[in-house]
């Protein structure tokens, strides 16, 4: 099953709706609750990253009996130093993002911790692509 969502940068009221939809789908498919939590925590963090940092983006979720594969691509400023961005506690989030409860510098580490496979590729001034794979069994 393939699901696609368009994400608008700066739209904090809608942030999380794609993750919520994926969560509902996985529950309907009877996926184990601990797997669902890993998928949606990783996806929600990545979705919030697009809203917080990019102009717009797209989420593609591929769900098979074996795994969940998520690809998030955005058009935005990109990440100049990925290693630094992966450091727990490091954040470039704006005051507005922090007021929404994010910007603790735990987003990328949270995604990485919940993923079985995690890839990130970024081009400064163009955008970022994040790929997350989580095994179902």
């Amino acid at each position, binding site marked *: 099953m393939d699901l696609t969502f368009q994400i608008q940068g700066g739209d*904090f009221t809608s*942030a999380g709706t794609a993750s919520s939809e994926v969560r509902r789908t996985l529950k309907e498919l009877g996926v184990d609750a601990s797997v669902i*939590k890993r998928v949606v925590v990783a996806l929600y963090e990545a979705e919030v990253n697009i809203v917080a940092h990019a102009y717009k983006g797209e989420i593609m979720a591929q769900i098979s009996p074996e795994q969940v594969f998520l690809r998030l691509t955005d058009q935005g400023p990109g990440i100049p130093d990925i290693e630094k961005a992966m450091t727990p506690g490091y954040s470039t989030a704006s005051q507005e993002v922090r007021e*929404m409860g*994010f910007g*603790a510098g735990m987003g990328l580490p949270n995604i990485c911790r919940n993923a079985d496979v995690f890839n990130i590729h970024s081009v400064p001034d163009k955008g970022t692509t994040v790929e997350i794979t989580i095994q179902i069994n």
Partner: protein
Amino acid sequence: MTIQEIVSLVQGKILTGKIAPEESIEYCFASDLMSDVLTVCRSDFMLLTGLSNVQSIRTAEMSDLKYVLLVRGKTPPKEMVDLAEENGIVLIISPYSMFKASGLLYGAGIKGVF
């Protein structure tokens, strides 16, 4: 500790969701930073937060939490209440500060998640 006892202890009010008289909780986690909440693997805790917007409910939803206690006497916006209702989350408000609410709950035997 039952949810009813917790509500009474923090002078709280339940805004959304239904609770059975025997419904109880053993753990709490207090934070205004949602990514910190999302680092907690377990789901059997109550979230104490001062973050009065939809993202605290979204975080509870993704973390599979049933109870959110909004502290500091904040009035949650309608979309936050609606989202809690939609997700079957019990949203409680308390006039107490995060420190006071946490202290009262800890003193009454509620444990931290780590």
